[in-house]
C-alpha cells in the first residue's frame, strides 16, 4: 500500500492517461468499462488526498528530482477541493454519456470518445496537481486539444464550426499564456510556483513581470469567455453534444479560473494587484461580463443560450471576487465555482430532457429541478446563497460600490430569467423519444446525487470555509 500512497498525486494523472491510451488503441467494447473504472479509482484516491491535505500540503517530486530543477506536484486544500470536484463532475458526465445514443451512432468511434474524455480529465487534473507553471501550460494544452475534438463529436455542421472557433480562440489564448510564462521565466529564472512566490516578493515592481502577468490574464480571459470575448463560448454551449455536456459546461471554464485563482491568491504577491491597475481593469471586465451576461440571458429565447449567458455571469462573479483579493473573496470565488459546476450541468441536462424527465409525476425529480434553480438565483440555505453572501460582503468591505450594485441587479435579473425558463420549459413540445427507461434512470441517478451533494455542501459550507482558511 505504501508504494501506492506515496505516488497518489502522480496516480491522479497517470490512471486516466494510461486508460486513455489503452482505449485509443483498442476498439473492444468490454474495455469501455475501463473509463468508468479509471475515474472511480481516481475519486477514491482524491478522497485520500483530501484527507491527507487536511494536515499539511502534500509534495511529490517527479523522478526524485529536487524542486527548482525537477517538476514538482503539490496539493494543498485549494487543489484537493478542485481534484474532488473534477473527478466527481467528470464521473457524472461520463456516466451520463456512457453508451448513449450519440455514441452508438454508426459514424462514431466510441473508443475515441472515451479516450478523449479521459485525456481531457487528465489535462484538468494535471493543471490542478502540478506546482510548475510550464507544466500547467502543457496540461492546459492537453485538456484544450481534447475538448476541441469532443465538441466536434456532435457531427452537425454547427458543432463543427463551433469546434473550429474553439480551436482558433483556444490557440490564441494559449499563445498569450505561453508568452506570459516566458516573460515570467525571463525575470525569475524559475518555473516552480513556490519558487516564484519567493522571487517575485522581492521584484514586485519589475515591469516585465507585470507584463507577463497581464499576458497570462488576457490569455485566460479569452479562454473563459469574459466580456468582450464571450460570443464564441455561447456558441459552444449551444451545440455541445450531450455526452460532453458536463465537461464543457461544468468544468472547462472553471479550470481556467482555477489558474487565475491559484496565481493571484497563492503565487504572486498581493502588492502586484494592489499597486498596479490590474485590479481596476479586472473590476471593469467583471462588471462588463456580469452586465452583458445577465441582460443577454434575459433577452434569449433558447434555454441553452440563457444558461450559457448565466454561466458567463457567474464567471464574472468569480473575476469580481478575484479583483478584491482578500480572504473573504477567496472563499466567495471557490464557493461560486463549486456551486456553479455542480448546478449548471444538471440544468443543461434538465433542459435537454425536460419532457422525458417530467413525464411521470416524479416528485423528487421536480424538487431537484426547483432546488437547482433556487441555487442558481441564490435562494437562502443553498450554496449559491452563501457564495453570494461572501461575494457581496467582500465587495462591501472593499467599498467596490459599483460592483455591489451590478451584482445585486444581476441577481434580480437571474431571478427574472429563471421565471422565463420555467415558462419556456412548460410550453415545450414533446419531441424526445420516451422509450428510454435506462437513459431516464441514469439521468435520475445523476441528478439526484449531484443535487444531494449540492444541498449538503450548502448546509455545511461551514466545513468548506473552515477548511479553506
Amino acid at each position: 500500500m505504501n508504494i501506492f500512497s506515496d505516488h497518489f498525486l502522480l496516480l491522479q494523472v497517470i490512471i486516466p492517461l494510461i486508460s486513455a491510451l489503452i482505449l485509443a488503441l483498442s476498439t473492444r467494447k468490454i474495455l469501455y468499462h475501463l473509463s468508468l473504472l479509471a475515474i472511480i479509482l481516481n475519486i477514491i484516491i482524491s478522497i485520500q488526498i483530501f484527507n491527507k491535505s487536511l494536515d499539511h500540503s502534500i509534495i511529490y517530486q517527479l523522478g526524485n528530482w529536487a524542486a527548482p530543477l525537477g517538476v514538482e506536484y503539490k496539493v494543498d486544500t485549494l487543489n484537493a477541493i478542485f481534484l474532488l470536484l473534477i473527478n466527481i463532475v467528470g464521473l457524472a458526465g461520463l456516466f451520463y454519456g456512457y453508451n448513449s445514443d450519440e455514441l452508438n451512432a454508426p459514424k462514431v468511434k466510441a473508443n475515441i470518445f472515451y479516450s478523449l474524455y479521459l485525456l481531457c480529465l487528465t489535462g484538468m487534473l494535471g493543471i490542478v496537481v502540478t506546482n510548475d507553471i510550464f507544466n500547467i501550460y502543457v496540461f492546459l494544452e492537453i485538456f484544450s486539444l481534447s475538448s476541441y475534438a469532443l465538441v466536434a463529436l456532435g457531427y452537425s455542421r454547427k458543432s463543427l464550426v463551433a469546434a473550429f472557433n474553439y480551436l482558433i480562440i483556444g490557440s490564441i489564448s494559449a499563445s498569450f499564456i505561453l508568452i506570459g510564462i516566458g516573460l515570467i521565466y525571463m525575470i525569475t529564472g524559475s518555473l516552480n510556483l513556490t519558487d516564484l512566490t519567493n522571487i517575485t516578493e522581492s521584484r514586485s515592481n519589475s515591469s516585465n513581470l507585470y507584463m507577463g502577468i497581464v499576458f497570462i490574464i488576457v490569455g485566460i480571459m479569452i479562454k473563459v469567455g469574459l466580456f468582450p470575448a464571450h460570443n464564441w463560448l455561447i456558441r459552444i454551449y449551444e451545440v455541445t453534444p450531450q455526452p460532453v455536456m458536463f465537461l464543457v459546461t461544468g468544468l472547462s471554464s472553471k479550470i481556467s479560473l482555477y489558474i487565475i485563482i491559484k496565481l493571484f491568491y497563492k503565487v504572486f504577491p498581493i502588492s502586484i494587484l494592489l499597486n498596479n491597475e490590474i485590479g481596476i481593469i479586472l473590476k471593469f471586465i467583471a462588471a462588463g461580463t456580469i452586465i452583458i451576461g445577465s441582460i443577454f440571458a434575459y433577452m434569449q429565447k433558447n434555454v441553452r443560450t440563457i444558461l450559457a449567458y448565466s454561466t458567463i455571469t457567474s464567471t464574472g462573479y468569480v473575476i469580481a471576487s478575484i479583483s478584491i483579493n482578500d480572504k473573504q473573496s477567496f472563499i466567495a470565488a471557490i464557493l461560486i465555482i463549486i456551486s456553479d459546476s455542480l448546478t449548471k450541468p444538471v440544468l443543461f441536462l434538465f433542459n435537454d430532457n425536460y419532457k422525458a424527465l417530467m413525464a411521470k409525476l416524479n416528485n423528487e425529480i421536480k424538487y431537484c429541478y426547483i432546488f437547482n434553480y433556487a441555487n442558481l438565483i441564490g435562494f437562502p440555505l443553498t450554496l449559491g446563497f452563501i457564495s453570494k453572501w461572501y461575494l457581496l460582503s467582500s465587495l462591501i468591505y472593499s467599498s467596490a460600490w459599483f460592483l455591489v450594485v451590478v451584482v445585486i441587479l444581476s441577481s434580480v435579473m437571474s431571478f427574472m430569467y429563471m421565471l422565463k425558463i420555467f415558462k419556456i420549459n412548460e410550453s415545450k413540445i414533446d419531441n424526445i423519444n420516451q422509450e428510454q427507461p435506462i437513459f431516464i434512470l441514469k439521468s435520475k441517478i445523476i441528478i439526484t446525487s449531484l443535487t444531494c451533494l449540492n444541498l449538503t455542501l450548502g448546509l455545511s459550507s461551514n466545513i468548506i470555509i473552515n477548511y479553506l482558511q
Partner: protein
Amino acid sequence: MSSKTRDIIILLLSIITVISVINIIFNYLNHGKASLTIISIAPNLNISFATEPLGLLFMLMVSVLWLITHIYSIGYMNFHYQKIDLSKFYTLILFSIFCSFGVALASNLLTLFVFYEFLTICTYFLIVFDPDENKMKAGRIYLTYLFGSSLAFFLPAIILTYSYTGSITFTYGGVFSETSQYIGIMFLLYLFGIAKTAIIPLHSWLPSAMVAPIPVSALLHAVAVVKTGIFCILKIVIYIFSVSRLNEYAQNSNLSLIIQIVAGTTIIIASILALAQNSIKKLLAYSTISQLSYSILAISIFTKKAVIAAVFHMISHAISKITLFFAAGNIYTATGKTDISEISGIAKIIPVTMIAFLIGALSMIGIPPASGFLSKFYIFTASWGMKNNYIIIIVLLLTSLISTSYFSKLLYNAYFEKTKEDISINKLSFYMQFSIILTSLAIILLNIFAQHIISFIS
C-alpha cells in the same frame, strides 16, 4: 384519509398549537428568554431561534387566527371544492404557518430572511392551487414583486448590516454601536426590501393574489403574509437599529419625513383605488394596503409609544380584516355574488354576516366600539407634539373620510337597496357562521385586552 378525519386532525393540531403558544408565553414570563440554535451554515451565520415578547405576541395572533380560519375553511372549502383533493392545500397552509412561526421566533436576520423567503414560496403554491391561466399570471406577479424586492434590497441590506456591525443577531438596543450616516439608507433598503408590507410602488402583488380561495386570502393576505412584513420591519426597528438610535438619527435628517411621505402616499392612493373597486375582495385588498401603511406611518415617529401603537394596529387590523374576508366569503357562498353592485339588499338574507361586516368596517374606519378606533387613537396620541406631525394627522383624517365612503357605499347597498328577486340562496354552514361571530366579538373584546397587550410588549 377522508376529508373529515383530516379536518379534525388539523383542528386538533391548531388547538394544540394555540395552547403551546400560550404555554411558551407563560414560560417566557416566568423564566425569561429561551434560545435554540439549529444549524450553523457558515461562520457567524446561524439558523437559530429565541423568544422575545413581540415575536410571541405575533405567534399568538397567527395561531389563534389560524384556528378560527381553519374552522371557517372546513365549511368553505368543503362547500366550494368538493371534487378536488385538498390535502395538498392544507399541507401548504401548515407550511405557511410554520414559516411565519419561524419568522416570529427568528433570533437573527438570516433566520428571519430564510423563513421570509420560504413563506413566499409556500404562499405562491397556495395562490396557484387548482391552477388556471389567471392564477398562474397572479402567481408570477406575486413571485416577481416579492422575490425581486428581497433580492434587490432586503438581502443587500442584511449584508450591509453584517459588514458594518459584524453582527446580525437581534439584540435589544440594536447592533449599531454608533449613529452612522448609513442608517437612513439602510432603513430605506429594509423598508422597500420587505415588499410584504405592500408599500407603493411595490403593492400590486396583493390585489392580484386575491384570486386565491377566501380562507387563503383571509389567513395569508390579511394575517400571515402582510403582517409578517410589518412584523419584520418592527423587529428590525427594535432589535437591529433600536428605536432610540433611529430617533436620534431622525432628529438631524429627513428620514421620518421620507417614510411619512411614502406611507402617506400609499395610504391615500390605496384608499382612492379602493373607492374605485367593484369586487369586494379587491376592495378589501386595497383597504389592506392602506391600513398596513398606518403601521409604517406610526413607526416613522420613532418613539416607543409609536412602535407600540404600530403593534396594536397590526393586531387590530388583522382581526378586523379577517372578519371582513369571512363576510365576503359568506356572501359568495350564500349568493354566489362577488361584486358590490350585485349585493343590494343582501342584509335581509344573511343578517349575521352583514352585522359582522359592519363591525369590521367600523374598525377599519376607526369608530368605537371597534378596536380600530383605539389603534388610530394610539397612533394619534403618539404623533402628538412631534415634528411634522401634521402629515400624520392629515392622512389619518383624510383616509377615515375615504374609507367611510367606500364602506358606506357597500353597506348602503346591502342594507337599504331593494333585494333582487333572482338571487338563489345556499344555507351557510355552522362553521362559517360560528367563526365570523367569533372574530367580530374579538374585534370588540380587543379593547378590553389592549392594556394587557401593551404592558406585555413594553
